[in-house]
């Protein structure tokens, strides 16, 4: 019975505006009843608000349409057959009110009124409510998954003036098909630590590009990641051939990649410029014959 309780909780939490359909299809009171059939069919709806000069004057549903048909279906305007007493709700009201009203009155749809402007801003049907609830459950479930790893609380739990988490990864060279394993590991870790998806994505791309470079040009390397609540610092070191002109490699499109790398979809000269783009601070040091050291920092602040 736990799910029932959860849903009961959600119908109080969710507002009409969270689930309503915003692009409302409406009809004029002067439209012919006969034209509803085509409208309902093409738009896959079973009722629609009737609007006159911007104001809501009624609602016409498939039930009104059937009633009209069984009464002979003679030519007449919607205004003669529509339901005039329309129940509406404000966009900031809790979902539970619509559900209670549905149960009691048997109405299937409620136009939603914007409390600020007084105009109609959406419509809520049983379908919208179910869809909204399912989406919310899915989001909650996802958040619970993230929370499941106690790691997301680690910085809150540690009592210190400054806390840093250090992760180290070894990058084995010459196997481009395996490139991405290091970045993948870092991405999962940062996700579990509860960082914003944008921060996670930027850090993962930096790691992936850097990892790919190590694999292409050096025999091996390592990546050290220092994670702090305010920033993620990455240092990637290799003992490769080094970069003769550090300025040059930061120019988009400059590449010295061999063909076998290009065939794999890399080596277009975008790697380092892309790392620069994704990071808030970047330092590249290289000595020919000794190796290369890349430092990149992603600052955790308001999302870019």
């Amino acid at each position, binding site marked *: 019975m736990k799910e029932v309780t959860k849903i009961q909780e959600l119908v109080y939490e969710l507002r009409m505006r969270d689930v309503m359909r915003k692009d409302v299809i409406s009809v004029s009171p002067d439209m012919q009843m006969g034209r509803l059939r085509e409208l309902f069919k093409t738009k896959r709806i079973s009722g629609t608000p009737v609007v006159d000069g911007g104001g809501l004057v009624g609602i016409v549903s498939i039930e009104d349409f059937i009633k009209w048909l069984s009464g002979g279906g003679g030519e007449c305007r919607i205004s003669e057959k529509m339901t005039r007493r329309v129940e509406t709700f404000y966009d900031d009201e809790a979902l539970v009110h619509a559900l209670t009203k549905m149960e009691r009155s048997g109405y299937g749809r409620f136009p939603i009124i914007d409390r600020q402007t007084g105009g109609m801003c959406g419509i809520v049907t049983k379908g919208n409510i179910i869809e909204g609830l399912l989406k919310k459950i899915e989001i909650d479930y996802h958040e619970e998954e993230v929370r499941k790893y106690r790691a997301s609380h680690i910085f809150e739990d540690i009592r210190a003036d400054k806390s840093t988490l250090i992760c180290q990864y070894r990058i084995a060279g010459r196997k*481009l*098909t395996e*490139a*991405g394993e290091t*970045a*993948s590991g870092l*991405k999962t870790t940062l996700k579990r630590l509860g960082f914003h*998806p944008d921060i996670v*994505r930027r850090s*993962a*791309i930096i790691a*992936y*590009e850097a990892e790919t470079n190590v694999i292409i040009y050096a025999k091996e390397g390592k990546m050290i990641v220092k994670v702090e609540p305010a920033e993620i610092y990455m240092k990637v070191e290799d003992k490769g051939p080094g970069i003769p002109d550090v300025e040059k490699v930061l120019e988009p499109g400059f590449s010295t990649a061999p063909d076998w790398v290009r065939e*794999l*979809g*890399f*080596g*277009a*000269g*975008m*790697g380092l*410029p*892309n790392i620069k*783009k994704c990071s808030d601070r970047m330092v590249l040091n290289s000595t020919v014959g000794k190796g290369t050291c890349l430092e990149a920092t992603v600052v955790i602040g308001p999302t870019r």
Partner: protein
Amino acid sequence: MKLREICEILEADIVHGEDPDREIDKVGAADLMSDVLTHSTRGSLLLTGLTNSQVIRTAEMSDIEAVCFVRGKRPQAGVIKLGEEMGIPVLVTRFSMYEACGKLYMKGLRGCEHN
């Protein structure tokens, strides 16, 4: 647009992917994975002619929702398996890159930089 609808438009096979209802609102097409990584591709579908595991890795790093291989090229088992592990659906369409893009654009799907 739902992944299911995209499959219909591209007459694509879902090689694997359990969630045909996932929402995709933009599309990118590239054979250069470096280019994909340069752009903001979150929540998009990636069309590509490249069929190695780097495509899946790139999709993973960039939060791409699904990958579709063009010209009927089926990736090797290892690539499909990686897609499965990463939860990234893999599709194959018989259309060329140009035609696949055109078909999706005509149905209203825009590129990753389009606002």
